[in-house]
């Protein structure tokens, strides 16, 4: 698994972005950028090459699901792996995310092991 990929963390809470960033660093990923919502994330995605997106579901302005749909609808971004972070993981929400093309999802609270496992699974490492 290539640990040099650029990962985008999208979450409206700075603390959760920091938690995920810390875990990613523990796992060995150093190339990390952050956005505080889907709108800021889309701007970033248009301006630099991002290899992997980790986004919260429940955000103001643009939800994680709306961001996922926007990414999948953009031919330049459509193939970017997308890991959804959710506090809910309710069956119907998961189905909506799968239909929209999510690569995988992770339920908060989670451990470093689980996040690593999900990323490894998506990247096929």
């Amino acid at each position, binding site marked *: 698994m290539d640990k040099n990929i650029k990962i985008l963390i999208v979450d409206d809470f700075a603390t959760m972005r920091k938690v995920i960033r810390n875990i990613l660093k523990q796992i060995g990923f150093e190339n990390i950028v952050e956005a505080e919502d889907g709108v800021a994330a889309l701007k970033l995605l248009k301006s630099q090459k991002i290899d992997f997106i980790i986004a919260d579901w429940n955000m103001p302005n643009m939800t994680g699901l709306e961001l996922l749909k926007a990414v999948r609808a953009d031919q330049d971004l459509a193939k970017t792996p997308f890991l959804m972070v959710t*506090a809910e993981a309710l*069956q119907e929400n998961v189905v909506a995310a799968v239909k929209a093309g999510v690569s995988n999802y992770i339920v908060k*609270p989670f451990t470093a092991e689980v996040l690593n496992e999900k990323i490894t699974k998506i990247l096929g490492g």
Partner: protein
Amino acid sequence: MLSEEILQRVKNSFRRSIFEVMEKMYFVFLEPTSDTSNGESLRGAEVNFSGPWEGKITVLFSPELIHLMINNLFGLEEGDMDEKIKEDTIKECVNMIAGSFLRHFEPERAMHLSIPSYLGLKYAKPPQGEVSLAMDADRGRMYAILDIRNVS
């Protein structure tokens, strides 16, 4: 009005969610207490949920517990914790408790969670709800209040 059976299921799911989030995310281990005579200023957040069930979850934390959670999460000492990190930590914690509660209580039907609202130093004493829990940690205390009604 909830039936006794449903109320018990609500209480069990709510308690389980609080313990799960606090232990897994913040490494805080809680003990239920019946003492609610907390004279401290409490900070908290609330989240509304809607769907086949609707209601509100409010969680209030004593200053010591907030410091413990942030210290466990980021290794920060009290003097290095600004208001923003305290607010974010509280809101995210309540968001996770609410999400976890819905997952345990009603996993198969779509529910919507609102964006958490911060309650600042609003409470000197916790309010009461359909389910009201008080819990002590090694340092500090938290109160969790749940109001719920069936709309389906």
